[in-house]
């Protein structure tokens, strides 16, 4: 049985690798309930459901909702190739809870590297690579229980925000939501001081069916952290012209009703 499983896993990995994609099998999946803000002007945070897939040598953090939306979109596209039907589908799902589009891949493409992907304006997929960040956690007094696991507290400053994390020593994974990690146990909850971003674990499972972590570099436009941060800031300031620029159209007077926002970024690169 084990050998069969091994062959199957190898085949899946092989197909991914053959198409120049990096792959891993998922051993543990953690679900988080997240709160976030897009702009500094919004009064209440939005919510999302995230999943952290931990593999043998890499991990992937993504939105469960957005993953489901993509499956639905792909099935619509496969049933009907008419671009107008796709537009109709987008019109029907407009405004519904689609989930946040960013994903964090740790130790992909190789150990020590982090790949971050995001989608701007539903159309433009970008990715950038950076080294796995180092966190200078300060251990703090405090204990709590999250999904049945006793957790300890740690605090650190990371790229402009003060994060408070709760980690469990019973789950010896150097991992956590988003880019967080570097603690001797899995981070089951994290929040930052301005109450603009937070994550709380709501479920954890050992993966019995085969699930893989596959990164498809060909789907993304390569950028850098600084360039991408600039793009997000520009986008919220003037959505009209930023999308025009991304599509190849020139500057034009934005509609009277457009509002300018200040992006609420999870991290700030200097």
């Amino acid at each position, binding site marked *: 049985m084990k050998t069969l499983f091994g062959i199957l896993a190898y085949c899946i990995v092989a197909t991914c690798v053959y198409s120049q994609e990096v792959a891993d099998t998922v051993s543990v999946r953690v*679900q988080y309930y997240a709160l976030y803000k897009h702009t500094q002007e919004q009064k209440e945070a939005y919510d999302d459901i995230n999943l952290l897939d931990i593999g043998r040598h890499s991990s992937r953090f993504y939105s469960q909702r957005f993953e489901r939306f993509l499956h639905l979109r792909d099935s619509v596209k496969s049933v009907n190739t008419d671009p107008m039907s796709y*537009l109709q589908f*987008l*019109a029907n799902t407009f405004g519904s*809870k689609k989930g946040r589009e960013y994903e964090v891949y740790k130790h992909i493409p190789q150990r020590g590297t982090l790949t971050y992907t995001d989608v701007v304006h539903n159309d433009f997929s970008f990715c950038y690579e950076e080294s796995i960040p180092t966190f200078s956690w300060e251990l703090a007094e405090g204990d709590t229980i999250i999904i049945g696991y006793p957790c300890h507290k740690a605090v650190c400053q990371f790229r402009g925000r003060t994060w408070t994390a709760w980690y469990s*020593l019973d789950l010896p994974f150097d991992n956590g939501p988003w880019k967080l990690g570097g603690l001797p146990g899995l981070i089951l909850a994290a929040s930052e001081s301005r109450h603009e971003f937070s994550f709380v674990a709501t479920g954890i499972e050992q993966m019995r069916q085969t699930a893989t972590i596959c990164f498809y570099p060909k789907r993304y436009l390569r950028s850098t952290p600084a360039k991408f941060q600039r793009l997000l800031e520009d986008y919220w300031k003037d959505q009209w012209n930023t999308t025009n620029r991304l599509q190849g159209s020139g*500057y034009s*007077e934005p509609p*009277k009703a457009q509002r300018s926002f200040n992006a609420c970024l999870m991290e700030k690169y200097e």
Partner: protein
Amino acid sequence: MRYAILFILLLTNLSLSAQTFTGKVKGKQGELLVGASVVASTESKSTVAYCLTSDKGEYKLTIPKGKNPASITASYIGYQKKTMPFADLKDGMTITLVEGDFQLKEVKIKAERIKSSGDTLTYSVAGFRQGQDRSIADVIAKMPGLEVKADGKVEYQGKPINKFYIEGLDLMGSQYGVANQNISADKIKSVQVLENHQSVKSLRGVSFSEQAALNLVLKDDAKAVWTGAADIGLGYGDDFLYDFRLMGMRFNKKYQTLMMYKNNNIGKQLDNEVLDLAALLKGRTGSESGFLSMMSVAAPDLADNRYTFNNSHLVAGNWLWKTGKDSELRVQGNGFIDKTDMQDYSSSTYLTLTDMPVIVEEQNVSNTRSEWKGEANYQYNGSKSFIKNNLKGYIDFNKSVGTMMYNGQRTDMMVKPHKRSITEDFQMSHTTAKGNIYNVESYLTYSYLPGQLLTIGGMTERLNLGFFSTQNEMQYKLKVGRHYLNNELGMNYDYQSIGVAMDEEAEKTNVYQLLRMYWYPSMSFLFGKHRIGIKSKISYARQSYRESRSNHLWIDPAVGWNWKATVVSEFSANVGYANAPLMGRSIYDTPIFTSYRTQKVNRGKTDATHALHATAAYKYTNPVSGLFFNLRPSYNRMSGNILYESAMNGNIYTMTATDKEYAMQTIGVSGRVSKSFGWAKTLVSLGASHMVTDYCMLVSGIVNDARMNTTSVSFNYSLRPARFLSVEGKSNVNIYKQKNLTAPELSSDPTTDWEHLLKLYVFPAKGWMLSVKNELFHTNDKSIGVNHFLDLAIGYKAKRWELSVTANNLIGTSEFERRTLGNTIEWYSITRLRPREVLAKWCLDL
């Protein structure tokens, strides 16, 4: 004793400075464990210090000053945790872990329940809690894949989106930039996509269009509130000018109303601002029009508000009642009244007559339009079924009256192309327990067109047209293996009665009938990154006109392919073949005047045209580098076109259909490259297209082959050199060459038209805007001078109101001369233009 004190000091010293322990963590087989955790904890289990092993399996644990841990725990996934007393830890120690099964205390991961929207016709109730507090501009322009240009033109994947409507009414006008601020995004329930939308630009010969439009459907709001907008514009040119708009909306839990009144005499078109919702939602391209049309001005390539002398009023209303939890009744009505004056001069040369006679016409006509439409729409939107019924009526009292100088001879003009129609459209959609979806639709329309036309001979032609059409179809999806087969079964029937009489004579009536039954399967596949769609319409058609009958079995296949090769490159291609029967207007064999001096007679035999089309496209989109490129070749061949023999019988130009037919073939290619630069947010683009059309004409009974070459090149640029200044410009040239290959002396001279546009926007202070627009037109014809237009505008925008002053045509260009080349005719025209005008406008949100 001294040694004891020293020993104690040494001991205490140890706990007063940070201690560092290094070593390795290994497994039983000696394998290095990377990323293992080594944690120092107190007795109460709180963490004192920790570290994670490096790539070489090495740990470096630093115990901070003053901390006294009780134990050390080393752990790693897949191995059993090892705990030892702190005292046992020695510097340089290798901690060995034994393999063990990692048992998780699982907490079930739940999937969220998504509300399924069931069938494809249901408009999902979108939850806007998650959306941004966006404006309408955002809702519309930010629909993924939509590209909005500055002039309001919007494209989705190369197909232009014509218009944006709210509840079927175009409240935003033709200028998209003036998006209505009253309706914020949280009032929008859903967005409808209307395919094959045709904005009524009737007289230009734009019939079928592959364009789409978006319609926003509003939510019923719990709070009863009135909102609205008012625009008041007053000005002076040759005479007083006015431009008003008054719009009010009220939202209730069970009732919602939208009412609008617009009028202007500054040349703005209002008749295409109210949407024919039912027809457009189903992709019907427009109601049946008769053989007569109102007089028109030879339309130059200018914006129509430069040469339209109108006096238009439009009143429109839209009321919605919630009749049940899932049902609603909507009533829409509108009336359009307009009086437009036209004066122009044109000289036409017929390329189909050997002596190429020139006809000079000077018209002085006024068009009076009075068009009234009413529509009632009932909709039931349940979880398993969807029912929609639409009843529509239309009546108009349009007429064109005036005088014409025809080659120096004065003649009176009168056309009354009246139309009355009633349409009933029923749709039902049902989702079975297994998830299969069935759609049924039945559409009936009857149009009665009693037209009148005064001919150049002084006789009045009376037309009596009665067109009845019904289209019925059923659609269902079948699962075939992994794919879906879409099926459509339909039956269409048309009955067209054409009656014509001159003056007091008896009416001659003939009837054309068409029965068409079809099966239309379609399927799409996904092979890796290739998307392929195959569809084929298989139909049996039976036509009859008087004694002529024909039966056909037609197969109309179409294949589409799309390949997103990389994230920046995309290839696509489409090939298809279509058979189209000739309808009554192309078959009737009684001579009918279609204009005051043109008479046409067809063959009286049922027939069809056949068209083959093939297009391909390559698109390169790289937003990171700012380079965009596309190339689109296309091929089109239509056979079965009737060859008409032209003759001048006195003053009347007659076109008589012969038995000869010809094929028209068009080959073309278009391309565009654009690049954006960081400096001053500049974008430049260069586009070009070339099309060659081969066709035939009959000249004195001999078939002449002819060719029309159309070439156009355009250069666009836009930049924002400073915060307060933005510049936009374009230059383009169109070259038309028509050649008669059989009798080259009958070819016409080529025409080259140039257009240059430069727009400057200045933003001197917050809320202020100054704009200057410069347009220059010139051609290769030296006798036609250069036409120059200059428009100025200054405006101030506050939160709830906006004031602007515009001065149009400052130079005072009064006439626009141009030469136009068509397939069988060449025109030279002089169009009267609106003079220098100033308009002050105040827009207010109520």
